[in-house]
C-alpha cells in the first residue's frame, strides 16, 4: 500500500512538472520571438521534463481539460490563475479540447510544433482554431479529444430530421412541391456527342500505369508557395479588372499587398522578392498599361517607400529569417531609396555579422542617392557600433556632402576608420575624392597609402599625374621603404606614360656626392619604371609612330647610362636591355 502511494505521487509529481513548465513556456512564447535563446532553453527543458515523466511512468500522459483546471488521473495538476483571458487553460477549453494525450516517445519536433500551434491560435481572429490545427498536424504521439457541439446550433435538429426522412425511405420521396420550379443553376458545359452510351465502360479506363501513379503522387507531395502566390496575384489582378467598383479594387489591392507582407513577416525574403518581381513583370507584359495594375504598383511603392514600414526589419532578420544570405540584397533592392534612413537604423540592430554583411551589400545601391541620409546617420549615436561598416557606403554616394564626410574620416586619429574611408573613396569619381586620396598618399599608415594609390590609379583623374609627380619630387619621398618607392614610381610611369620619362631621366642624371642607399634605390625605381614603359607588349609595327619614337628615345636613354651609374643600377639596366634584345630577336 505504502509503495503504491509513493508510486502514485511520483507519477503526479512528474506530471505536474511537465504541465507547470508547459504553462511557463506558453507564457514565454508571447514575450519572445521564435529564435530567442531564452525561449529555446525553456523549450529544451520542457522536452527534458517529458522524458523524465516517461522514465517514471510507463503509460501515456493524459491530461483532462475542464473550465477551471487540468487533471492527470484524479489529481489537479494545474489550476486557473486569475482572469487572464489568454492563458493556456482558457485557450484549450475554448477551442473545445477536453483531453490531450502525450505518448511515450513524443519527439521535440511534435512538441514544438504543438507549441507553435498554441501561439498561432492565441489570437481569436484567425482562420484556424487549435483543434483544426491539431487535426491537420497529423501528430503521431499527441492525441486529442475535442467536442464540436457548437456546430449543432440553430435548426440542426430539423435539418437532421429532414435528411433522415429522405434517407430512411426505401423508395424515392416525391419532391415536396412538384409544381414549384427547383433551382436551376447549371454551370457545367456538356457536350454529349462523344459519349459511347451503349458500350460498357472498358476495364482499361481505370488502368493506371505505375508511371502515371507516380506522377500523381509527386504532385500531391509538391508544395511550391511561390508558384501558388504567383497564381493568386494573377487571379487577383484579373478580378480587379473585372470588379466594377473602386471599393472592390481597393480591397483587392490591399490583399495583393498583404500577401507579400505575410511573406515578409515570416522572414521569407526570397519568396517575397519573387512575388513582387512577378507583379512587376505582369505589369510590363500581360497587364501592360492596365490602370488598375498600375495603381497597385504605385500603392506598393508608396507603402515600401515609407521608412516607418520597415521598423521591424532587423527584428525579423534576428528572429525569424532562415533563408539564404543572398536573399537579403535581392530583397532590399525592392525598397525605394527613400526608406534608407530607416534601413540604416535597422542595419545597426542586426546581430549576426553575416547577416549584417549581406544587408550592407543590399544597402550599397541605395547609397548613391542617399548621401545626406548616410551623413545624418553617421552623425548619430546609433551609428557608433557600425561606424566603420557604414563609412564604406559613403563612397558610393554621389552627394558632395558624403565626400566631405569622408574627408573628415581620412583625418581621423583611428587608423581603422581612416582605412575604411580611404577604401570608400575608391568608389567615388569626383575630383574632391581624388584630392582626398592624394592627401592619403602621405598617411602614416602604409596600408592606407597603398590603398589610396591603388584607388587613385583606378580613378584615372587627369590631376593624378602632376600630383603624384610632385610627391615623388619631394625630398622626403626618398625616405620611404624601397618597395613603396618602387610602387609609386611604377604608378607614375603608368599614369604619366611618356610624360614621366623626363622625370625619371632627371633622377638618373642626378649627381650625388655619394651614392647613398636611398639614391641607389631611387635610381633603381626609375630604371624599372622606364623599363615598364619600353617593355610593354605589342607589335612594333602596329604601334603609333609617336610611341615608336618615344620608345626608341627611352631605349637610347638606357643604353647611354653606361658607367655613370652605380653597379646595381647598371646591372638592372643591362638586364632590361637584354630582355629587350631577346624580344626583338624573337620578333624578327
Amino acid at each position, binding site marked *: 500500500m505504502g509503495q503504491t502511494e509513493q508510486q502514485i505521487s511520483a507519477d503526479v509529481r512528474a506530471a505536474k512538472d511537465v504541465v507547470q513548465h508547459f504553462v511557463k513556456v506558453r507564457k514565454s512564447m508571447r514575450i519572445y520571438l521564435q529564435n530567442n535563446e531564452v525561449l529555446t532553453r525553456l523549450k529544451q527543458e520542457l522536452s527534458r521534463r517529458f522524458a523524465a515523466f516517461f522514465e517514471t511512468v510507463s503509460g501515456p500522459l493524459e491530461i483532462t481539460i475542464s473550465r477551471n483546471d487540468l487533471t492527470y488521473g484524479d489529481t489537479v495538476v494545474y489550476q486557473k490563475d486569475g482572469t487572464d483571458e489568454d492563458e493556456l487553460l482558457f485557450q484549450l477549453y475554448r477551442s473545445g479540447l477536453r483531453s490531450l494525450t502525450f505518448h*511515450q516517445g513524443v519527439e521535440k519536433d511534435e512538441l514544438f510544433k504543438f507549441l507553435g500551434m498554441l501561439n498561432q491560435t492565441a489570437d481569436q481572429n484567425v482562420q484556424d482554431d487549435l483543434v483544426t490545427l491539431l487535426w491537420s498536424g497529423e501528430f503521431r504521439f499527441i492525441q486529442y479529444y475535442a467536442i*464540436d457541439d457548437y456546430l449543432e446550433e440553430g435548426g440542426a435538429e430539423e*435539418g437532421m430530421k429532414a435528411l433522415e426522412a429522405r434517407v430512411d425511405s426505401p423508395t424515392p420521396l416525391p419532391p415536396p412541391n412538384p409544381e414549384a420550379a427547383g433551382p436551376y443553376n447549371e454551370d457545367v458545359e456538356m457536350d454529349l456527342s462523344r459519349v459511347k452510351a451503349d458500350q460498357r465502360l472498358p476495364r482499361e479506363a481505370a488502368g493506371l500505369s505505375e508511371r502515371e501513379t507516380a506522377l500523381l503522387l509527386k504532385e500531391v507531395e509538391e508544395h511550391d508557395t511561390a508558384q501558388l502566390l504567383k497564381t493568386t496575384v494573377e487571379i487577383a489582378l484579373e478580378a480587379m479588372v473585372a470588379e466594377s467598383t473602386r471599393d472592390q479594387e481597393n480591397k483587392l489591392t490591399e490583399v495583393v499587398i498583404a500577401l507579400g507582407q505575410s511573406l515578409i513577416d515570416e522572414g521569407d525574403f526570397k519568396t517575397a522578392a519573387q512575388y513582387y518581381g512577378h507583379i512587376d513583370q505582369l505589369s510590363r507584359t500581360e497587364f501592360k498599361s492596365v490602370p488598375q495594375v498600375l495603381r497597385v504598383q504605385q500603392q506598393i511603392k508608396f507603402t515600401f517607400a515609407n521608412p516607418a514600414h520597415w521598423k521591424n526589419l532587423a527584428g525579423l532578420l534576428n528572429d525569424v529569417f532562415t533563408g539564404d544570405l543572398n536573399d537579403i540584397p535581392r530583397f532590399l533592392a525592392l525598397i525605394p531609396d527613400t526608406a534608407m534612413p530607416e534601413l540604416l537604423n535597422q542595419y545597426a540592430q542586426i546581430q549576426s555579422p553575416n547577416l549584417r554583411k549581406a544587408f550592407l551589400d543590399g544597402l550599397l545601391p541605395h547609397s548613391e542617392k542617399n548621401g545626406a541620409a548616410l551623413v545624418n546617420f553617421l552623425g548619430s549615436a546609433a551609428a557608433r557600433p557600425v561606424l566603420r561598416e557604414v563609412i564604406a557606403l559613403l563612397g558610393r554616394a554621389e552627394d558632395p556632402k558624403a565626400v566631405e564626410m569622408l574627408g573628415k574620416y581620412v583625418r581621423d586619429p583611428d587608423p581603422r576608420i581612416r582605412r575604411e574611408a580611404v577604401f570608400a573613396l575608391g568608389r567615388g569619381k569626383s575630383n574632391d575624392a581624388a584630392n582626398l586620396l592624394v592627401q592619403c598618399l602621405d598617411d602614416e599608415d602604409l596600408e592606407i597609402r597603398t590603398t589610396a594609390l591603388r584607388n587613385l590609379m583606378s580613378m584615372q583623374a587627369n590631376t593624378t599625374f602632376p600630383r603624384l609627380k610632385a610627391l615623388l619630387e619631394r625630398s622626403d619621398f626618398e625616405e620611404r621603404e624601397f618597395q613603396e618607392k618602387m610602387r609609386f614610381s611604377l604608378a607614375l610611369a603608368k599614369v604619366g606614360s611618356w610624360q614621366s620619362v623626363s622625370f625619371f631621366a632627371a633622377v638618373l642624371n642626378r649627381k650625388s656626392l655619394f651614392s647613398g642607399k636611398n639614391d641607389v634605390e631611387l635610381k633603381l625605381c626609375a630604371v624599372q619604371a622606364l623599363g615598364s614603359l619600353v617593355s610593354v607588349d605589342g607589335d612594333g609595327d602596329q604601334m603609333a609612330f609617336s610611341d615608336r619614337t618615344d620608345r626608341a628615345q627611352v631605349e637610347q636613354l638606357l643604353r647611354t647610362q653606361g658607367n655613370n651609374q652605380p653597379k646595381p643600377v647598371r646591372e638592372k639596366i643591362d638586364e632590361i636591355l637584354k630582355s629587350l634584345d631577346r624580344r626583338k630577336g624573337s620578333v624578327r
Partner: protein
Amino acid sequence: MRNTGMMEAAGASSRDAQINLNGREFVRAFAALIKTASIYDPKNTIFNQPVEAVHKSVSRLFDDNATVTVDVVVDEIYINRNLIKMDMAIFGSYKQLGEDLLSKNLGGFELSANPNMDQWKQFAVLLARFKASTEEGWREANELFSRQGMTWVTFTEKKERLESAEHVADVKSRRTRALRNYTQALSVMREAMTHLEDPDKIDTRQAKRVVHNLVDLSFEDDDDFSFMGLSSIKNHDEYTYNHMVNVCIISIAFGQKLGLKKSHMGELGISALFHDYGKLFIPLRILNKSTKFTDEEWEIMKSHPLLAVRLLYNLKGVSPSSIKRLLVAMQHHINYNATGYPAFRVPQKLHLYSRIVSIADTYDAMTTRRCYQEPFAPDFVLKYLLSEAGRKYDPILIKAFINTLGIWPVGSCVELNTGHIAVVCKTNPRPEHLERPYIKVVRDRSGNMMDPQLRDLSHPSQASLKIMRCVDSEKYNINVPHYLV
C-alpha cells in the same frame, strides 16, 4: 467521464483515423525494412533508418494495446485486427509485404513486446532469408525464431477471413454521425450565405471542423458504410448547398483513393466545399431560373468563378490552404486543355485540387435532377467523363476517378443475370476485381422489395452472379441513398 453521445462520436471517429495512420506507418516502415534485409548485409549502416522507423511505429502501436498483431488475410493487411486501407501512396509496400509473408506460408505474426533496434534488425534479416518447406510455414518459423531467442514473436497460420475486432462504433450510431456531419456541412454553407456582404464573418473554423469530421468519417468506410454513398443524397430544392457538400464528399473519397495525406484531404475537402462560393453572388432570379438561360444570363452565370475572389477579402485568411481554396473556386471551370471559363490573361497552371474538383463537380451536377432534365445515371456520367478525358479533364485523374467509383459506379442500380436489381454500394478494394463491386440486391425479378444484404461479387460464393447493365433507379422506384447510408 465522456458522457454525451456527440462527444463519444467525435472521439471514435478520430480514433479510427489514428489507427489507420499508425498502421499505415508500420506497413510502410516494415516493408522497407524487409526489403533492406533481403538486399544488404546486416552490418551495413543503411539498416539504421528503417530499423528506427519500425521500432518507432511499433512503439506507437503498443501504446494502445498490450500486444500487436499483424495479419495478412488474402490480400488485406490487418493490424490489431483493424483493416489497413490500401491507397495509391501505400500500394507498393502493402502488396510487397502481404505477398512476402504469404509466400513464406505465414499468415502474420504477433508481438508480445517491442524488441529493441538490434533485435528488429536480426528479426528482419532472419525473416527475409526464411523459406518454408511445408504448408505450415508458421510452425517452422516459430521454431526457428525461438531457437534464436526471439521469443517475443509468434507467427500465425494463414487464414481466409479474420473474425474482425468489435466495431469501434456501432453501425447505427455511425449512420447518425454521418448524417449529422452532412447536416452540419449544409448548415455551414447556409450560414456562409448570410455573410455575403461581409465575408470576414464566415467562420472558416466551423467549415474546417465539419470537413475534418467528414475526412475522419471517410476512414471508417467498411462493409456497413460507404462514405462515397453519402454523395447520393440529392436535394432538388436546395441544390446549391447539397451540391457543395456532395462535391466535398466525392473529392474527399477521391483524395483518399489517391493516397493524399489526411491534412491534404482536409484542404481538398474545404476547397471542394467552397468551389461554387462565387455563385452566392449571382442574383437569385438567375440562379433559380426554371428554364434555360439566355445568352446574357449564361454570361452572368459564367462570372461565378471570378466572383469567388471575394473569398480573399477575408484578409485574415491568407495562407497556403486558403489560397488553394481560392484557386479551386477560380479554376474549376477551366478545362485541362485551357478552354472553359473564365479566360485569364495569363494561362493558368491548374492546381491538382482544381482538376479533382472539376471532375467531382461534373459528376455530382450530372447525377442530380434538374427541373428541365432527368438525372444522368452514374455509369453514363463516367462514360461522359471518359469521353472528355484529355480534353476537359486530366486523363490520369479520370482513370483514378473510375478506380474510385468502379466500372459499375457506386450509387448506380444494376440488373443482374438473375434478373434481380441491385445497388452498387462499394468499389472492390482489390484493383483486379474492379468489375466485381460490393452490391446489395434490393428488388427481385418481379420488382418486389428484398431484404438487402451486402455481397462481395469477387467472393467465390458469388461467382455465378453477373452484372448485366445499369438501370434507372427511378424506374424501379429505388431510393439509392437508403441502401448506401
